[in-house]
């Protein structure tokens, strides 16, 4: 069963194309990361998902309901932590939750919800005096009210310190264990990597990759990278290393050889360089980080290749 089905979605703001013919399906029960640099179209997509904005063309179906024509049915089963939101400064944390509980027509206890996000001690203070992290926790508590089937979290770690970000991840996992589908956006790969089953990478309004974390790792040509120290890092040496059968790509970086390992063991590559090109003095291994991959996907090729 599909929790979110985005079909040929396009959104223009005047001349600006925020999202261009986006297709994406999020399955029920998964934690789905929606990754992209700032301004890539993540928030626009989420805004349309929640009917804050209307699509130029295409459609979005959430939990079997059309996001535009049946928005209320969608939001009845969806908990939302929007991006760029603002709390009601003159209302207390408890009043926020009382309002949400009444509107969602559920019987959750506001205090319990505030305890889950660890701001119960500030329940009766006006939210205008909350710190950024506390506001984020309050908004999360509002999203969790009513035990939704789907959580849509737009940049959930905004304003949270590392500890808070970890607690946020724990809450996401907890909710997911109870069967909740989680869709969350981020511009930081590390956060997505830590919890997501699958990831979509979006750049300039277009989808550039959808896969599992492992799949993304496997699919990337930066499988593994070796930094090899040799005496001679001339153009000729680089060319000869690149020509080796076990090497996918070779270049120089900081006076060392940067070698991308192809379908072979690192040991075989080192041996091949040592034996047939130039003596190896030292080497280090870098496991391809997804951050690297993310940068690669979302920057122009020329900027990445040094």
């Amino acid at each position, binding site marked *: 069963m599909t929790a979110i089905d985005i079909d040929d979605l396009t959104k223009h*703001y005047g001349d600006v194309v925020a999202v261009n013919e986006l297709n994406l399906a999020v399955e029920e029960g998964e934690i789905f990361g929606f990754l992209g640099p700032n301004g890539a179209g993540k928030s626009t997509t989420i805004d349309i998902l929640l009917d*804050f904005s209307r699509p130029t063309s295409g459609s979005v179906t959430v939990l079997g309901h059309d996001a535009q024509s049946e928005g*209320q049915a969608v*939001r009845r089963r969806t908990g*939302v932590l929007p991006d760029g939101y603002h709390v009601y400064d*003159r209302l207390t944390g408890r009043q926020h939750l009382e*309002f949400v509980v009444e*509107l969602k027509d559920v019987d959750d206890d506001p205090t319990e919800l505030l305890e889950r996000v660890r701001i119960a001690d500030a329940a009766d203070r006006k939210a205008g005096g909350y710190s950024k992290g506390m506001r984020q926790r309050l908004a999360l508590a*509002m999203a969790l009210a009513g035990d939704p089937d789907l959580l849509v979290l737009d940049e959930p770690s905004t304003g949270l310190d590392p500890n808070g970000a970890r607690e946020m991840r724990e809450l996401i996992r907890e909710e997911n264990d109870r069967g909740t589908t989680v869709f969350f956006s981020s511009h930081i790969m590390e956060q997505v990597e830590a919890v997501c089953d699958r990831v979509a990478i979006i750049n300039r309004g277009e989808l550039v990759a959808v896969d599992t974390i492992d799949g993304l790792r496997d699919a990337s040509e930066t499988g593994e990278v070796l930094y090899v120290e040799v005496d001679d890092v001339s153009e000729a040496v680089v060319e000869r290393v690149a020509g080796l059968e076990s090497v996918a790509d070779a270049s120089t970086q900081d006076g060392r050889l940067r070698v991308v390992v192809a379908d072979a063991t690192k040991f075989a590559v080192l041996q091949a360089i040592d034996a047939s090109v130039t003596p190896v003095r030292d080497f280090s291994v870098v496991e391809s980080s997804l951050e690297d991959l993310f940068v690669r996907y979302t920057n122009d090729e020329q900027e990445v290749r040094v």
Partner: protein
Amino acid sequence: MTWIAVAKKDFRDAVQSRALWALVGVFVLLSVFSTYAYIEVPQLFGEPAGATFGGLVFFTVGLTSLFVPLAAIVVCYKSLAGERELGSIKLLLSLPTTRLHVYAGKTVGRAGVLAFGLGVGLLVGLGFGAVLLGAVAVVPIALFLVATLGFAAAYASIIVGLSATTGSTTRATTLALGFFVVFELFWDVIPVAILYVINGLALPTSMPDWIFPVMQVSPSAAYFSTVVALLPDLSASVSAGGQAGVGMSPAEAEPFYTAPEIGIVVLVLWTIVAFLVGYTRFEAADV
């Protein structure tokens, strides 16, 4: 019925507005002071026969017809534009409600805040007058309150409607103040100016009948007529102190649209039209 929850939340929020209570404070001071002046020296206010409760009510209309528009602007101009500018509307629209319910809840909530502030102000002002006069007229007060609350509802609807057309509080302020300037400050002048022009740059000796309903387009003029329509006996006994066009006697064979009841129609129309325009714009907006 999620609009009730929205209205309650909005009331809780907006009733804490300091600007509103500053305005209520000024209103109370002004009404206490002027009530006192009216009762002590009624001759000054065109009542050589002495102060009456009816006179006091009409006197208060002059105050409320200024207070309500200003208070409505203060309470309502940010109602939707402010939530959109800050982004709190995203928390609201993330919930299982619709834009119609949000819009209706906003209008009702803000009208409630306005009514509350107004109620406090009037209670103190008229209460003070009743004590000084040693008399209370319950029915006129009730009818006066009905008219004033209707006026407040119309103004809340207008300013919320204007606020719904934009996501910028700066523009919302401009629209609200612009409305006030055009329909409250200049509206007396505009129809007369038109008349002046079409009459060949001279004022006619008598005003044509259509001038009256055109004047009533201004919500505060409609409000005054509404009070006259609801309290015909009082208005007959009180010289309506220079307020244009409402002193005419019902005995004359005037066209129906010169009856003061037109004020009620105008207030209802303002409420409905503003609601529809504001809602249509809000419904279509990317927030």
